[in-house]
């Protein structure tokens, strides 16, 4: 099993502050290497064989026995290494990043561009456990938390509802106005119990229109199912 590499100077003691004392205690040393000091002249060969790299975005270079907060060469070198952020997943976190929802882009599923340290360390153990038990690197756990599916489907539903905002609940659904990409995400996440494909549902709405109120109700049932059970049990009629 390839190893996770966590690279953080932890100068401000954020690991302890946000409940990740286990890092320095070596609790997950079987799957994760923790590196707190690196300089640009160190051998960075480990990067090529990493399961993923979790790195403090502005990692201070360490040389002459001290950290240099005006020098971040090693962080740059790691980011530029072949495959990092592509075939080798990369997560960048920082105290300067205030967002608890990771900047996780659909077009590049193997990279989180920014995430607050607080969020990162509070989710790290779940991320490692997932890797240990399932053998998969699931960056969404770091980006959105353990219940990342709920977050993703809610985000999609928010976008779909937004596309219908300001239209009365009694009116029929204007299918062309529905935010397609997010609607597709909801339907795909609602499989298999929903019983129909995205295309089937859209076609159905065009052939037999329903009111916006009814449409929102159906989406809400899926969302509530995720809240209650972690997946969908609703079948689209």
């Amino acid at each position, binding site marked *: 099993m390839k190893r996770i590499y966590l690279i953080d100077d932890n100068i401000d003691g954020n690991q302890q502050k946000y409940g990740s004392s286990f890092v320095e205690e070596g609790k997950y040393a079987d799957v994760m290497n923790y590196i707190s000091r690196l300089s640009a002249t160190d051998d960075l060969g480990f990067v090529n064989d990493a399961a993923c790299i979790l790195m403090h975005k502005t990692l201070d270079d360490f040389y002459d026995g001290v950290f240099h907060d005006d020098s971040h060469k090693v962080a740059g070198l790691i980011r530029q290494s072949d495959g990092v952020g592509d075939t080798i997943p990369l997560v960048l976190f920082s105290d300067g990043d205030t967002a608890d929802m990771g900047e996780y882009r659909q077009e590049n599923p193997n990279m989180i561009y920014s995430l607050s340290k607080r969020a990162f360390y509070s989710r790290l153990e779940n991320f490692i456990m997932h890797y240990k038990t399932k053998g998969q690197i699931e960056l969404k756990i770091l980006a959105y938390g353990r219940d990342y599916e709920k977050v993703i489907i809610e985000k999609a539903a928010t976008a779909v*509802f937004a596309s219908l905002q300001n239209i009365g609940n009694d009116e029929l659904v204007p299918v062309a106005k529905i935010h397609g990409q997010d609607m597709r995400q909801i339907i795909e996440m609602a499989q298999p119990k929903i019983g129909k494909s995205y295309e089937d549902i859209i076609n159905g709405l065009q052939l037999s229109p329903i009111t916006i109120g009814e449409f929102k109700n159906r989406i809400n049932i899926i969302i509530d199912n995720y809240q209650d059970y972690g997946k969908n049990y609703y079948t689209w009629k």
Partner: protein
Amino acid sequence: MARTIILGNRNSKELATKIAAELIEVPDIYENDFGEVNDFVVEKLEESFDILVIDADNIRRADVALALGLFLRLSVTDVGANALVPIVFISDFTMKKYLHIKTYSQLLLTRNLFFQSRSNIILDAVLPLEAERYYEDFLDFVCVQPGPEVGRHSLANQWGAGVLDRLLNNGVSSDNEVLKTAAKSLFFKYSFVQTFNVADFLKGKPEARFAITNRPAIQAKGRRILLIDDEADKGWEYVLKRLVITNEGDFDVIGHRVKNYEAFTKEEKEKIEKGNYDLIFLDLRMNGVEEENIYKPEDFSGMKILKQIKKNSPGTQIIMFTASNKAWNLKALLDAGANGYYIKESPEYKFSLGFSLANYDALRDNVKDCLRRSYLRNVDFRIKSIKKDFNKTFVNRNFKASVINQLESSYVLLEARHFEFAYISLYQAVELINDEYLDMDENGTWFIKDSGEDAKSWTINIHKECIETKVNGETSSKYPEWQKMASLYYQLWGQTNKTVGYQLQMLINERNKFMHNESNRNSPIHSETGYLDLLEVIVTICSFI
């Protein structure tokens, strides 16, 4: 017509028009302590309005949407009656989406909060919270806990310093960043509204207003203060410097963790021991979270430090600061020699305004008393110096022990504020010295043992100078103690300062008057003044032994 405000983003404009509301756009807020939410509420919702609509789907984060309502409700002292307006929370989602959001979702369970679908908004029937029912209809439904990253010790420090700060600042938080940030947290706001009656506050009843409780600072120019607190930077340094006004550079701080006295650096020990501090403020827990599970008073770092400082210098005045309000801890502090204590108010306990005031008043009285009694440190130092010097001399061991014993006994009486008895006890040291160096021959004439020379008679002239008397020049069995001491001073030790004899006469006369019940109430014997004057003379005398 009712004034309605809607919180959302630019997508909320159409809805705002539809319900005739004024739109205030909410910026993207990421911070977890939500200080920004507080700032937004206090700043944007200050002007009077009647209904608040929160367009939750058009606010970037669901928890922020909820937090806006919760912060508004808890901001009574900031926005007044606006905190009670009906809140209409609108969303296309069901309430279930919001109920899983920790802490902030509690807003949805309170009264006068209306969860409505955005396509079916009804504002006609929404009513505000009644001030008299603020607790029953709102606060009793809410429970806010401190964040896990802030230890109980730090919480009490931030809160306690904040309380003292408000008392010194007309009831509002001052401009200190640390205190301001702490006061904005949801937990502190939640705790704060429990310390006064909201209905009385909104009616402007003076007894409910923290603002009228302004307490004066203590002038201590020329005095030196030391604060020893590992969390001094949590606001205590700032607020104590405002409480006790010293000259620039006369308020020092040792502000890092230590587990006991030995853990201080050499420089810090020197500062404590030789810094001439009139008063030391000392925190009971000087070792952060390490001490959260300590229960025995003697195990606290501050207690160990207190004992060591008092062992080195019993006269050093120390006021302990503690978040503990347990009687046995407080008693143990006083037993260990603390000159007072201040209970750092903790948000975990709901202290009333009355308690805060009494707590402050006790602290002020304590500080004043300690500053007044800081002479004890000097007295102890002088007695120790005499003891040290005595040990270098070759005089009779029993005599040395008796004098020291007399001085130490007098100190104990002085510390216990038995000024007259302390004075008399100190005076007995004069008698011991006289007895050691003078004797009376068969004819009743006093002589100096060492030289065999007759002791002279002394008098005080009109210039308050001690001079040898021309009358007879002989001593008798009724030779007064002050003249005996004058003989030693002028004859045996060859000193020439004529005022010393005068001082001796004055001071010994005060003792005699007291013993014969003739002392008037203004006599220095009834306060520390007489003792300090007599001690000065004794220190001078002892320097020749």
